[in-house]
């Protein structure tokens, strides 16, 4: 569709202008739905946690409180953005942008269904890892530019947590690459064809949990939200931010949550593939479900797990959090790299043929 548009535009415009317009339109058509999902994910979070704690959740704005995200956005945008007197103004503004931009840029390679993606590059997994590793600069610059010791300590705490869990995350992805034999996200999904038992979930079950737990830590969600710690340490790097500058940090966090859910579904849960492939009666029964539908279902379930965990677990202490990352998850992933190597050598199961 976009190729046709580009061909049409280059008929009467400069070539480069046609490319730029097409690229911008492609970016908007991916980013806009993501931002809408982010908005209503905050609503879903408050509703789900509300029901789990036997409350109503938001129910005032619009039917069932459905317009609450819009009210929240308006409130954030009309609030005054306060700059601390001794802060570094440029970096203070750039920090939230640096938090949000990579969380959005990573979507360039995420396939929503077969062939429905902005850019089908053959190092897709590496691109997502590389781009999401830039997010840590949002944290670290925000803490430094605020010129406050509390914000700075929070930034050190938060960025140390992020780069620690990135290692476990990377190793978990290495095992996926070993099975799939490709870094292209479309090929990784297509390698899981053939129903539930061909997904990478079963041979990589520990890695699935490692990836998801690391994802929780990367996005600062409970039980790893020492960055917020509203009850005991009252926020970290964004303690001096207000209004929309603070809102942008939250947008980035939720966009990353959705990204992690998408990556988990694509890597371990067969992406857009139906779980009933190859099963006599169930496969034709669910043949009407579009590919995007399956992916959306898996992603929504994982997002629900994010919210569920928040309503369930207390917060980790910081030293326990670091111990879990370095002394439990990373050794586990390294062991599993060898296990996958052995499974590959012995052509184990339907995954290694």
């Amino acid at each position, binding site marked *: 569709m976009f190729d046709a548009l580009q061909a049409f535009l280059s008929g009467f415009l400069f070539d480069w202008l046609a490319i730029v317009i097409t690229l911008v339109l492609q970016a908007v058509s991916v980013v806009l739905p993501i931002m809408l999902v982010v908005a209503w994910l905050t609503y879903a979070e408050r509703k789900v946690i509300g029901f789990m704690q036997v409350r109503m959740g938001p129910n005032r704005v619009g039917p069932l409180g459905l317009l609450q995200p819009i009210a929240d956005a308006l409130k954030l945008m009309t609030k005054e953005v306060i700059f601390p007197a001794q802060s570094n103004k440029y970096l203070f503004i750039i920090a939230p942008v640096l938090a949000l931009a990579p969380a959005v840029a990573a979507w360039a390679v995420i396939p929503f269904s077969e062939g429905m993606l902005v850019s089908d590059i053959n190092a897709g997994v590496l691109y997502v890892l590389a781009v999401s590793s830039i997010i840590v600069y949002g944290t*670290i610059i925000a803490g*430094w530019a605020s010129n406050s010791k509390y914000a700075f300590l929070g930034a050190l705490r938060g*960025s140390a947590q992020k780069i620690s869990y990135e290692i476990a995350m990377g190793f978990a992805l290495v095992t996926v690459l070993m099975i799939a034999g490709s870094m292209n996200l479309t090929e990784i999904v297509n390698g899981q064809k053939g129903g539930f038992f061909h997904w990478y979930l079963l041979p990589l079950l520990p890695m699935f949990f490692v990836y998801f737990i690391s994802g929780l830590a990367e996005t600062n969600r409970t039980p790893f939200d020492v960055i917020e710690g509203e009850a005991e340490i009252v926020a970290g790097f964004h303690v001096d931010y207000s209004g929309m500058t603070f809102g942008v940090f939250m947008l980035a966090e939720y966009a990353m949550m959705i990204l992690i859910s998408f990556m988990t579904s694509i890597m371990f849960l067969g992406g857009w593939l139906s779980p009933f492939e190859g099963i006599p009666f169930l496969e034709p029964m669910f043949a009407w479900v579009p590919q995007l539908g399956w992916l959306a279902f898996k992603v929504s379930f994982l997002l629900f797990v994010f919210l569920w965990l928040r309503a369930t677990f207390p917060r980790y202490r910081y030293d326990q959090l670091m111990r879990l990352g370095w002394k439990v998850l990373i050794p586990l992933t390294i062991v599993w790299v060898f296990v996958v190597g052995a499974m590959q050598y012995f052509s184990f199961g339907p995954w290694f043929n």
Partner: protein
Amino acid sequence: MTFEQFIFYLLATIATVAGLMMISVKNPVKAALWLVLAFISTAGIWIMAQAEFLGLVLILVYVGAVMVLFLFVVMMLDINMAILKEGFTKYLPLGAMAAIAIFALMYMVLGPEHFGLEVTGNPVIQPADYSNTVALAVPLYTQHAYAFVLAAVLLLLGIVAAIALTLRRRSTTEVLYQDIDKQNKTLAVDRFRMVKMEAVVEKDIVTKEEDDK
């Protein structure tokens, strides 16, 4: 100018400006951040040169890990810039001479004489399914396998040495250590002791007042 050329010149300009800012800006934290920008734009240029693996790894390793640790250190140091900038004008001619000499050397080695288009020919434009990752991995794990393993062992040695240098165990009178295994294995029974006590009945207020008198 094609779109690729436009992107190339954009990234090259950003990289050059970021490099210049890195060495001229006063604040060391800002210098580190300019270096990060230089890394990112260089990675972009590498990706345009069809070396997508190297470009992405540059971002992943240097931007995502090394520079973050670097920033940690620079941010926590209390650097007095006045002392660092002392004698700048005095050493400027010497520094300029050294810079020119190094540039001349680099030009002689890397200049058009050895790497010009007449020598190397036009770069080969690879098809879309060409994987730079595979092209790098195959010689790395076959031809250069021993060198690769040797480099890995060296890095491991570095890790072990760094840990061995910083690892110290102080006496428990100085520092309190936590036994995490013991903490994890704790049961509610161990923490909570039910005690049966005789009920203590307080005297009622009237008699209390009488006692005070």
